[in-house]
């Protein structure tokens, strides 16, 4: 799902320099999702399927309005429904548009061993390049949001591209275009952050949602998709939005100290046996008479 018009600032599994690294001039793009005005109409789900020309798939009925349990390789945008019990005995219907969060510090990219299979463009979009994907599914392990999905037939990974093709042509993503309530906004990260904070303040001051706030988790360096939540203290209630997402420590440990320790051990071992041979050489067989 690549686009040649976008410069790249991070590349997965890459030895050597990255063309766009440290030449940042473009604005970061950002999707704002206001869960307080989402009506769960799923127009964004349909728009995503339409624009990205994804094949239809079976849906699953689980006694809620949710289309299927989680996103799929050919279903990148899913409204998560949750009937959330209130303290007063009432019930609140939480609806959250789930998709790739386009992390500034993407766990999928950190975990990916395939050169160029995952890139981050200068505008912050994290994109999978299926022609370089090897189908190892390490990104599944790296992602703190359970987003990348495997197509068992093509052995490639898929997820939301943030409509890279549209955005690179100056258009907003298909989901934004389709939203009838205006709960979805698209623009620069700074603008969206400001709009989100204004909305959260409005909710705190003029409604009963005194704990309203903006979800832009710092653990992954901030995200290219931010939420306004009625209750920022409990993101888990919104279909399992993690309260403090991070690149898994196991991925960090494996890609940094463990890798260097391993490299040292293997190179040390090779030097060791070479030195041993130079110092002691081969063993001699005692040619005792029969």
């Amino acid at each position, binding site marked *: 799902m690549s686009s040649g018009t976008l410069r790249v600032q991070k590349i997965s599994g890459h030895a050597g320099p990255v063309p766009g690294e440290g030449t940042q001039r473009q604005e970061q793009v950002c999707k704002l999702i206001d869960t307080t005005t989402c009506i769960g109409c799923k127009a964004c789900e349909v728009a995503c399927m339409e624009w990205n020309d994804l094949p239809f798939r079976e849906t699953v009925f689980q006694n809620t309005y949710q289309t299927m349990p989680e996103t799929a390789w050919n279903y990148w945008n899913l409204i998560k429904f949750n009937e959330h019990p209130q303290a007063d005995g009432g019930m609140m219907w939480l609806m959250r548009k789930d998709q790739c969060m386009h992390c500034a510090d993407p766990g999928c990219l950190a975990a990916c061993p395939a050169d160029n299979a995952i890139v981050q463009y200068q505008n912050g979009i994290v994109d999978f390049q299926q022609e370089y994907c090897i189908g190892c599914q390490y990104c599944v392990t790296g992602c703190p949001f359970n987003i990348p999905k495997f197509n068992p037939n093509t052995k490639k990974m898929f997820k939301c591209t943030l409509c890279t093709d549209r955005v690179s042509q100056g258009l907003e993503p298909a989901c934004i275009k389709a939203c009838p309530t205006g709960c979805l906004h698209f623009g620069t990260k700074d603008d969206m952050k400001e709009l989100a904070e204004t909305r959260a303040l409005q909710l705190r001051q003029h409604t009963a949602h005194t704990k309203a706030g903006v979800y832009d988790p710092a653990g992954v360096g901030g995200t290219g998709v931010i939420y306004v939540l009625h209750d920022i203290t409990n993101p888990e209630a919104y279909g399992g939005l993690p309260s403090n997402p991070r690149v898994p420590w196991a991925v960090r440990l494996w890609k940094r100290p463990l890798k260097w320790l*391993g490299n040292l051990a293997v190179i040390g071992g090779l030097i060791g046996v070479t030195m041993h041979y130079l110092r002691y*050489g081969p063993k001699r067989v005692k040619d*005792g008479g029969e």
Partner: protein
Amino acid sequence: MTAYIMRYTLIERVVHWASAIAYMYAMATGAAFYSPHLYWIAMLLGGAPTSRFWHPWVALVFTAAIVWMLRAWRNDMRITAADRQWSQAMEHYIKNEDEDLPPIDRFNIGQKYFFWVMLGAGLVLLVSGAVLWFPELIPWSWRGLRYAAILLHVAAALVTTGAFIIHVYMGTAVVRGGFTSIIRGEVSPAWAKTHHRLWYNRVTGR
């Protein structure tokens, strides 16, 4: 001339080389996925998606071979009192002062450790590899398993790599005749007496 002694039967040699080739393929493709600086190995072996596809299947061949070895060599690989004595004098072995070493049977303790390390690490690689092969079958709430699997897989692979380097070095460069013995199966009586005196006595009845 001297009559050569059969050290490895044909089936032992076949299984050894099946496991060796399978291991080297899995190690080479694994190394390609381990470091971006080694990714070119996957290119040489037919491309990275191909390497990723065959890596687990070939690893199953390695598993089958090592299970056969466990069955066949269980008794030979048991660590004995003679081995413990020998390992006390290991320094002499490293310094090629083999005349100062107590006699041992078919395998020395280094070979035995190598076998058990490959078996144990192989088991860890098999279990963690199964998780890495089908990560989407692990429910999201059990994702800790995936985190454990990536760490265990790479750690166990590094242990086998270290063991492999020493095994190949000893078997080819240091113990001359060892490499021939695992290809043609035969060793000279002098070789057997020097390196495996108890085994020599046992098989020749001398």
